[in-house]
């Protein structure tokens, strides 16, 4: 008797069964009730079947690939930890970039996980639903691998102990936090444009390449490896973002103005958040990879232009805010570092002034701006520090209502003048760092009136440990706020020179290399 052997499924069949084949139209309840969020933004979808999944990845294959990557990654992380790899980094200033990453970025990976899980549930098309589900799992893996690979540093250095706690409280972390909160509280399509397209496609290279190459240049094998382990996922995420935008634009001409507004908004919000990366590249890496300006020119101006050229056939225009970035790229990293330097008492990492040779590097990379606007300021602070009068600004700054960054950016065309913008809404004043943040507010004021601005929250008395009485005689707000942040005053914060991190690193390295 002949055996009837079932033919193995082909890739295409398998993909069909494992994605599209898993969806169905509901009958007990109307589809609009089951998927209540995919219409209110005004996006019109006529045929979800037109969604093309460029990767055609199915869940079973996904698990296999990811498991393989995990095995490699954890082998390297273990080796790094066992060999005291942390003593091989350039100098202990480098570790502060990890603190910035762990508090400012890793919790956002987790937020991205939540966002994609949510959006995956809300799309009635099964193609994007499966793709979002995979991205949701990628994102939680990124959060986990970052925390695991950096946890080794937490055994030896200060400031790495409470990233999740800090994200919801510490003043500068409201910048990345509010960025993702803004996206996740929007509808599913805006989320896809905000995170899937603008962040993953347009801006992600400016985040990952600097941190990962920064890790490689500065001898941090652990951080470098999680970067590479995430890289193949990022390629898939970028493609998802791009596919999403093309799908929306092909579905209905009415989608174009909505999508354009989201691109304008999220390109700007993204560039503001990336100010933190700019500062990291130019000031925090002991061995620099390239300047922020160079990175911006390569990854945004060149690659971004190619992308927008590609989208021009759908009627998409380059966001107007891009014009301002041509000027900003010469300034924002210096302005941001000046801010962290002076508010160095309230951060979970150390700050310092660049050494003379590092200032020369900055002059060379920023011939139009560094010597003229920033060197005098930094040399003055360095001199004052030497004279025992290190600058700490103890008065709280004014913040932008939308990006939540202190109002540190200068007027377009005049780098000597802070840029002020304001608007009145329902008899209340709101202030902004730029025309673009102001426009974002004016489009959805009811959203941004709710901003949790750290400075205002401190003055409202909401940022002290429970049971604190701010009216008690001799009450000092700064220590109470730091306690609320879980920042250990004198260990996690303040100047790098003389810090416990600096002393320990030097002593341990001596032990490791000498008798």
């Amino acid at each position, binding site marked *: 008797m002949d055996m009837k052997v079932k033919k193995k499924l082909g890739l295409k069949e398998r993909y069909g069964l494992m994605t599209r084949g898993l969806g169905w139209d509901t009958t007990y309840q109307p589809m609009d009730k089951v998927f*209540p*969020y995919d219409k*209110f*933004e*005004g996006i019109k979808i006529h045929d979800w079947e037109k969604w093309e999944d460029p990767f055609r990845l199915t869940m079973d294959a996904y698990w296999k690939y990811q498991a393989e990557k995990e095995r490699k990654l954890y082998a390297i992380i273990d080796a790094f930890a066992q060999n005291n790899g942390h003593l091989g980094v350039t100098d202990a200033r480098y570790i502060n970039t990890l603190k910035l990453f762990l508090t400012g970025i890793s919790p956002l990976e987790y937020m991205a996980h939540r966002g994609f899980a949510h959006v995956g549930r809300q799309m009635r098309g099964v193609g994007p639903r499966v793709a979002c589900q995979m991205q949701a799992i990628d994102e939680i893996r990124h959060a986990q691998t970052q925390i695991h690979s950096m946890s080794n540093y937490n055994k030896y250095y200060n400031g790495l102990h409470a990233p999740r706690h800090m994200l919801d409280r510490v003043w500068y972390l409201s910048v990345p936090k509010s960025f993702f909160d803004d996206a996740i509280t*929007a*509808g599913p399509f*805006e989320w896809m444009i905000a995170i899937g397209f603008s962040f993953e496609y347009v801006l992600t290279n400016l985040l990952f390449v600097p941190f990962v190459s920064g890790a490689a240049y500065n001898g941090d094998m652990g951080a470098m490896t999680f970067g590479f382990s995430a890289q193949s996922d990022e390629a898939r995420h970028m493609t998802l973002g791009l596919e999403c935008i093309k799908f929306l634009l092909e579905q209905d001409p009415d989608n174009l103005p909505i999508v354009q507004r989201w691109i304008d908004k999220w390109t700007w919000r993204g560039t503001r958040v990336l100010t933190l990366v700019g500062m990291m590249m130019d000031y925090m890496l002991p061995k620099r990879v390239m300047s922020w300006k160079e990175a911006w020119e390569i990854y945004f101006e060149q690659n971004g232009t190619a992308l927008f050229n590609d989208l021009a056939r759908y009627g998409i225009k380059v966001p107007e805010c891009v014009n301002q970035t041509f000027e900003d790229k010469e300034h924002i990293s210096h*302005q941001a570092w*000046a*801010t962290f330097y*002076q*508010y160095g008492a309230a951060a979970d990492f150390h700050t310092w002034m660049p050494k003379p040779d590092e200032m020369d590097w900055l002059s060379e990379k920023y011939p139009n701006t560094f010597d*003229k*606007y920033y060197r*005098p*300021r930094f040399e*003055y602070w360095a001199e004052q520090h030497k004279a025992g009068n290190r*600058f700490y*600004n*103890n*008065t*709280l*700054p*004014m*913040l932008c209502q939308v990006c939540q960054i*202190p*109002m*540190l950016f*200068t007027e377009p065309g005049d*780098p*000597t*003048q*802070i840029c*002020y913008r*304001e608007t009145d809404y*329902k008899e*209340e*004043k*709101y*202030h902004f760092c730029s025309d673009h943040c102001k426009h974002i507010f004016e489009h*959805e*004021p*009811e*959203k*941004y*009136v*709710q*901003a*949790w*601005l750290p*400075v*205002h929250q401190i*003055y*409202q*008395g909401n940022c002290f440990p429970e049971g604190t009485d701010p009216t008690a005689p001799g009450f000092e707000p700064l220590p109470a706020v730091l306690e609320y942040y879980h920042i250990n005053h004198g260990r996690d914060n303040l100047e790098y020179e003389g810090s416990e991190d600096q002393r320990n690193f030097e002593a341990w390295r001596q032990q490791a290399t000498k008798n």
Partner: protein
Amino acid sequence: MPVAAIKPYTGEVKDRQENFHGAQLLYVGWDQHLMFCAPFCFPFPPTMRFGDVVEKALPPAFGYHPEFAKIDWSKAQWLKSGKPWTPDFNKSLAENGLKHKDVLRFKTPGLTGIKGSST
């Protein structure tokens, strides 16, 4: 529409004046002096004398700058929401017409910052 939402929606104004325990917010920036990275945010009672803001609150905030002590306040030029404005030092914030979250800037002609760099 003031917000994209699935149903009519009004946001909670987080920073309305009554949340500040009797104070109102006043923002103050010193033009062309970027040693202070951003304007300052202060909570002051509306009854506070404007002169006290300048004489008592600004020195701890701006005093680190070597030019601060050289300011001739009778010559300082004030801007409120970017427009020229003249304070009465002996009147209160409220009497000066300053409301919650107003923003003031002052210019100090002749003082150009560290090495003339607007720092």
